[in-house]
């Protein structure tokens, strides 16, 4: 087994799947999704094998090295440490779920859709495995195009704008990263006379302080856009809102983690002086992002946008945890990355469920879902409380550890950071109350309940709160099934909401809403289990990553100290 290229197998199985779909007979409409599911499942199973065989130390394991362009110092070099191995497992799991979710919801251009999804998976896996900057960059760019296509082709009304914005933002980052890679390569060559792009070798180089300052910044911005970190975050709400559910899940659960991963893999080990120079700025921006994301989420009328801004807030914990440079911070950052993967990924599925039934994501259009879809409401509650950091669920441990580490760095920073627990509860419970509690549009109060009808309440509330958004709130159009027809009549932007649903104020909407289907259960249940298990017992994760973090911390103190 020692020589078996496990990493490459995991990374290229989806690519093989994509090629298979490309050459499969066009006539079959079910073949593409079957191939995609099999390929991604195989990749997932192998990543579990990888995880099981991973030894708990700081060494890079399962390495594969083939000299590629010898004269330029490029080699095909793959390997994983504790950080990468967990993110790989997260990626393969979420890819399976994303493909399974698309099973019936994607009805147009299915071949191309699954090809894009599989290509994306290969790109993401490669990013987490590559230890050669050239290979890393190739995977980094591979991942970009399918995601832009997923948003631009299978997205909602404003999909092209969102796709272009996403593409431009990330490409801007990639560009800076390319410059930084070349500069590092050159500097190392000048110093040692060796041409190499091997990350581990480059870590041994000593770079001038000014050089580190600028090159660090170039790498950092590339990753900060991906995270996304305030103020590079504005592509995220648009991308999420427009993206199809599966793409939103991948985007939130995996792609945002590339930023944090990149910082851990490149910024910290390669440029300790640069890290030191930029630390304060990064920490300040992270804390701004944490609070800013939560506050902006507080006033969002669109569910996906609300969750997108909450992501900005959560991911602030990741960058903060990485740069405060202690074990609690790093452990916390890792746990936040994984927990955010489960929870926010799941929350996008949750929104996907009702979007596919009601064709709107406007919070004002919903109410009383607990009566109509009790199981959905229960899943929603679970992931929502995990997301706002309820102890015992996965979100808490990471955020607490980051705040704990921050306290050691600066008390005031910790106080501001941790105060987000109030705002997080505020926006999420507001969302939950509006959507799940209460009564649906026009539904009459229960006997003995003296309250106004829902429509009357809404009218009052509109007058008070949402006057600036227009007085006519859109209402859900119920399809009853779980097919997303992807018509362009997105209720959010529809000028005349009365056309969207036949209901109007004061009239009971008695049509049935299908609760969670078996297919949806199968996608949500694993995430539910994971979010509980890692909330109660995060030790296995910490055991895997701690040696790698210790190495990073040792490296940082060694160079800074010396």
């Amino acid at each position, binding site marked *: 087994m020692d020589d078996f290229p496990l990493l490459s197998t995991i990374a290229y199985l989806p690519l093989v799947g994509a090629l298979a779909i490309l050459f499969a007979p066009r006539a079959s409409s079910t073949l593409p999704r079957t191939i995609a599911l099999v390929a991604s499942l195989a990749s997932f199973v192998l990543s579990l094998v990888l995880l099981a065989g991973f030894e708990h130390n700081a060494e890079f394991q399962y390495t594969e090295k083939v000299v590629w362009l010898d004269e330029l110092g490029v080699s095909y070099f793959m390997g994983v440490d504790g950080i990468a191995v967990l993110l790989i497992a997260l990626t393969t799991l979420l890819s399976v779920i994303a493909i399974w979710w698309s099973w019936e919801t994607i009805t147009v251009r299915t071949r191309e859709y699954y090809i894009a999804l599989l290509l994306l998976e290969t790109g993401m896996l490669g990013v987490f495995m590559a230890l050669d900057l050239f290979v890393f960059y190739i995977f980094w760019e591979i991942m970009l*195009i399918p995601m832009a*296509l997923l948003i*631009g082709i299978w997205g909602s009304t404003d999909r*092209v704008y969102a*796709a*272009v*914005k996403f593409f*431009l933002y990330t*490409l*801007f980052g*990639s*560009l800076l990263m*390319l*410059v930084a890679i*070349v*500069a590092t390569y*050159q500097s190392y060559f*000048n110093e040692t006379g060796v041409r190499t792009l091997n990350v581990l070798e480059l870590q041994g180089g000593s770079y001038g302080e000014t050089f580190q300052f600028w090159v660090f910044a170039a790498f950092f911005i590339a990753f900060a856009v991906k995270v996304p970190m305030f103020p590079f975050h*504005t*592509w995220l709400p648009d991308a999420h809102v427009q993206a199809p559910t599966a793409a939103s899940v991948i985007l939130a659960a995996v792609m945002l983690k590339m930023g944090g991963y990149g910082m851990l893999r490149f910024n910290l080990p390669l440029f300790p002086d640069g890290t030191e120079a930029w630390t304060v700025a990064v920490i300040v921006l992270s804390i701004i992002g944490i609070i800013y994301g939560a*506050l*902006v989420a*507080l*006033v969002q009328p669109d569910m996906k946008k609300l969750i997108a801004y909450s992501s900005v807030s959560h991911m602030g914990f990741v960058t903060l945890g990485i740069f405060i440079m*202690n*074990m609690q911070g790093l*452990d*916390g950052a890792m746990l936040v990355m994984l927990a955010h993967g489960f929870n926010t990924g799941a929350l996008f599925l949750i929104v996907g469920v009702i979007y596919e039934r009601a064709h709107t994501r406007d919070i004002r259009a919903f109410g*009383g879902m607990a*009566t109509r879809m009790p199981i959905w409401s229960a899943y929603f*509650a679970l992931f929502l*409380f995990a997301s706002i950091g*309820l*102890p*015992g669920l996965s979100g*808490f*441990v990471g955020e*607490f*550890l980051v*705040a*704990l580490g921050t*306290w050691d760095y600066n008390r005031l920073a910790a*106080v501001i950071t941790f*105060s987000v*627990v*109030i705002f997080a*509860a505020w926006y999420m*419970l507001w969302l939950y109350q509006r959507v*799940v*509690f*209460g*009564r649906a549009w026009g539904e009459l*109060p*229960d006997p003995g309940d003296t*309250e106004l009808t829902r429509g009357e*309440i809404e009218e009052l509330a509109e007058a008070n709160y949402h006057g600036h958004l227009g007085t006519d709130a859109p209402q859900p159009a119920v399809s009853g099934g779980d097919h997303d027809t992807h018509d362009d009549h997105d209720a959010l932007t529809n000028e005349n909401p009365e056309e969207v649903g036949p209901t109007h104020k004061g009239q009971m909407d008695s049509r049935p809403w299908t609760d969670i289907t078996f297919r949806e259960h199968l996608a949500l249940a694993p995430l539910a289990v994971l979010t509980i298990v890692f909330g109660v*017992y*995060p*030790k296995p994760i910490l055991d895997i990553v*701690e040696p790698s973090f210790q190495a990073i911390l040792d490296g940082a103190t060694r160079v800074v100290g010396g």
Partner: protein
Amino acid sequence: MEDLLYLIPLLPLAAFVINILLGRGFIRDNAHWVALPLVGASWIVALLVFLDVRDTEHAISQHLFTWIPAGDFVVDVNLYVDQLTAIMLLVVLTVGFLVHVYSVGYMHGDPGFYRFFAYLPLFVFSMLMLVLADNLLVLFVFWEAVGLCSYFLIGYYFRRRSAGNAAKKAFIVNRVGDLGFGLGVMLTFWTFGTISFYGEHGIFEQAAHHAELGIAGGALTAIGILLFIGACGKSAQFPLHVWLPDAMEGPTPVSALIHAATMVTAGIYMVARNYTIYIQSESAMMVVAIVGAFTAFMAATIALTQNDIKRVVAYSTVSQLGYMAFALGTGAWVAAIFHLMTHAFFKGLLFLGCGSVIHGMHEEQDMRKMGGLRKYMPVTFWTFLIGSLANAGVVPLAGFWSKDEIIVGAWISDSSFGKPAAIIGLAAAFLTALYMFRLVFLVFFGKERFDTEHIHPHESGAWMAIPLVLLAIPSVLIGFVGFPPEDGPFHHFLHHAFELVEVHHVSMTTTWTFGIISTVVALGGIFIAWLAYIRGAINPAAVRERFEGTYQFLYNKWYFDELYDATIVQPLRRFSMFLWKVVDEGIIDAAVNGVATGIAAISQRVRHVQTGLVANYALAIAIGMVLLVGVYLAAFSDLFQ
């Protein structure tokens, strides 16, 4: 016994898991047959543990697993039972079990029956873990977990908008407290290097010897105050008390168990648990005492004017929690826990009695529409009367002994705030008797003020009546475990949990004097209520007109809700809106779009088919990229030299 500790929380947890997973599909209206036996079994184990601790006089503990190992920050999940925990276990499980029984009758026929009997054991589990925790973070975990149960149970009638609002408010206000608690945990860790309570290097051992260890006293004060902010949230102390009255939106058994007997006392328990830290810091104790005394008085004044039967009792709870807090702050540790215990029984009883009244009156909660219920529901009346007498502190019922001890404790304490606190306590005791008997007279005496043709009040069935009787017994008798005052079996038992506290010798004269003053004050309150609502010698309406301003101020709960809305909620909403519309969309996004438009203007080919756009941009950027790299290589490197 150590090896069986895990059973105490596990059994209620099992009831939750079974009912939440299978309740909807299979168990439905039989959910109580899952919850009752399991919670009852837990009670038996807890009783055995209690006896074990009593006999051996040693704390026992059980290691479960290591939760977080993050560098030198290691958190274990251990169960720990000392005398304090043993008492809390019995209080939680006794009241908890009786409330379960009562709920079978109260929630009968409710469509969410199984859901109710899932949340209730989950709460019992969380509360048990909270008192079993042997370090601050695990305590914090279940501190939030009981808040979660509270959220779901307040919002149980989720179709009512007011219930949803109340649930949300309770959670968010508690989160403000949790922020303080969480920061307190962090400061504890960075001060002591651990968050475990006990052991050689535990925080209590270090706090007791902080001077020798070179730990600043200021840190202890800060920890004490931060933790108390948490207690203010959970135990509804000023300024975070606003959620508790609204929490009455939940079903009445929930109000009895969570919002009167157990969860709201978690803050008191937590401060008592950390007494070693507090006794090192006069300032922290002072804060606790002042906040507690103020809350005790303020809530009592509000309770005078409310018309909703549950709200009166809710404000009474806030007030009694204030007593416990100032007892803690003046160093009367045992008295605080004593009052916590007696209060759990009689306030649980009062809430269950309210539920019985509301049930019998067909969901009517307004006292102005009641009256004369004495003859319709005798069991409810007599048990409620016992609860009211106990709450008012009439000798020899349970509330008398504990409340009196708090007031004496404050009076003789070394704290400079001790004597003012005792006087405020007596004033609040007068108000307590007054509002409790205003309620009793309005509800159970006088003429029926409801439509007797359509509403036929009735006594509740056995499921509800039996718990009332069973809670009435300790409401009368439990006070005697603290007899003679300061020297009863209760004090001897708890002494081990508060070893470092100096025992004050209280002279017989002081004890008798305060006993008589308390009794006179309580009877005075009852007498005035009698004059006003039975005899008619005082006309409440006239009093109200005379002091209209004061009345409105009290009736509107000192305008705290309005104040918070105007100074915090609305400004924050506007600021968030500003961040979104102006900063996010107006500045950052506009800049990005401006750049994009600029590029678009240069590139003439962008007005093509939509999906072509991406490729065009890709091309443009790729060319730019090559250019940039080329420039770099040519100008700044020696690659081409």
